[in-house]
């Protein structure tokens, strides 16, 4: 079983470029040099996650391999058809108290990114509340939002938007 590890926020300096000039002031005001990157902009590459799944949770014949709860437009309540899935994951969390879950709420792309981040949080919170009502512990679950940033479907039409209005459940080792 994978241990729950939060990503270390390692920063890789690819290039610390600076050729900040100090200029002779005689004869005029020195011009700030941006042409060669000074006061420069050093490029940093963010680390990417090497997530790995857990066999029991990725078996396509197991309901636990399904991770997405879908929502209607402008809605933040879990639909009846999603109940069996939520119940199965609640049971798994109860039976595996060492497991942690990250719930990522998502929205369609219409409107402000930050406002959508807040709306996605409402969806993640709805899934979290359903799981805790079914016995999972608050300390096992973190609900966060990806807003409109990680669409499953990239086209601008309603069937696509419907796939993007969802909450995804990730387990320890997958995030």
């Amino acid at each position: 079983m994978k241990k729950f590890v939060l990503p270390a926020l390692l920063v890789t300096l690819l290039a610390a470029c600076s050729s900040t000039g100090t200029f002779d002031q005689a004869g005029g005001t020195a011009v700030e040099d941006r042409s060669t990157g000074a006061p420069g902009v050093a490029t940093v590459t963010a680390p990417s996650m090497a997530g790995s799944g857990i066999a029991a949770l990725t078996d396509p014949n197991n309901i636990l391999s399904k991770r997405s709860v879908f929502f209607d437009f402008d809605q933040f309540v879990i639909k009846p058809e999603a109940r069996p899935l939520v119940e199965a994951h609640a049971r798994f969390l109860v039976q595996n108290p060492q497991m942690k879950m990250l719930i990522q709420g998502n929205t369609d792309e219409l409107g402000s990114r930050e406002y959508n981040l807040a709306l996605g949080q409402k969806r993640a919170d709805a899934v979290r509340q359903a799981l805790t009502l079914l016995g999972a512990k608050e300390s096992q679950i973190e609900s966060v939002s990806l807003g409109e940033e990680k669409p499953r479907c990239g086209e601008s039409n309603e069937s696509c938007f419907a796939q993007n209005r969802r909450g995804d459940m990730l387990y320890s080792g997958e995030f």
Partner: protein
Amino acid sequence: MNILFSRFRLLLAATVATLSWAAHAQLSIEITGAGATRFPVAIPLFENEGSLPRGITDVVRADLERSGLFSLVDMGLVTLPATAVPDLAGVRARGADAVLAGSLYPQADGRYDVRFRLFDTQKQTELGGLSLRMTPAQNRATAHRIADFVYEKLTGQPGYFATRIAYVVKSGPRYELQIADADGMNAQTALASREPIISPAWAPDGQRLAYVSFEAKKPVVYVHTLATGQRQVVANFKGSNSAPTWAPDGQRLAVVLTKDGQSQLYVLNADGSGLRRMATSPGIDTEPAWSPDGEWIYFSSDRGGSAQIYRIPASGGSAQRVTFEGNYNVTPRLSPDGRSLAFITRNNGRFQVAVMDLATRQTTILTDSSRDESPSFAPNGRMILYATESGGRGVLAAVSSDGRVKQRLSVQAADVREPSWGPLTR
């Protein structure tokens, strides 16, 4: 070191045919509208400018033209040295109400003294002059300083050509937070990631950016020092951390956290310490923006049932509703003088940039596009940079605060979004 050398080819569709821009530009700028009356100005070649590998006055002309406030009077290959008063009547006869005379003086160390004087051809007076020292590679930075000088002398407002902009480019699975000069040139990548980056916000010092990165599979707020690449996590609480905005003092940030429930407003120090909750609402509070005088924090909220803009005293207190028309008004951004508010309004299903005069509460929609986001004022308040969509791709656009001047900035084969206009740092 220019990391992104030659990454994109320049596509210049400006009305200015005389520009000779460097080939490694990332953003191309298209002028799609100009002011009704434009001030005619002549910027002839500087004396000895031909000895530089890349020019200065072509960049000055492009800056002024792009502002939409000036028309350029062609002076051909005439040069007017800074040492003598030019034939102002002759320049006036060509139609220019002002003219810039300048000279370059090579120095023993390879640098140049650039001296210039601006003249009013109607009053036959000198409006002022400056001397700058530059290396040949600093031609653009020098030109932006000169354009700022001309702009300020002729409009009475500070220029914004020597400022920088931040924005996010998405190409395939790769996200880059880029910093460019206000004309889209000199783009450099501050952060590259395989996860989204949103909401860059310039610190008042122009040296640091706060933003939200999803590299930890959740939104976390960072403060990033551009020159060194040093990054600090300032908000990584349980739940989501987003929407950073700087207090005018540069010491504090407002952020949105979900650690206590739904998205709510908090203030903390720029090093992440001293967390304090600003407001408690039963719904969403997000997108905080400090007023320039530091007195108010504007934000969007659904506390009244629909997404509207409110404000709350920065010292604490009760919220006041600011927008009342329509059912989706978000992303409040104050003008630098604090007198007007830019925001995004949904208008018959279209998301557009609007500006409200805070004294009269009169609102004007400035754009005719339908997917506008993230308005950001130029430091002098004249232009508003925002993100929109064109041809299925994210592009940046700018509109003057009176709606007359319009520009589009795009990167080929990539989505550009989340613009933020940096401060004046002189």
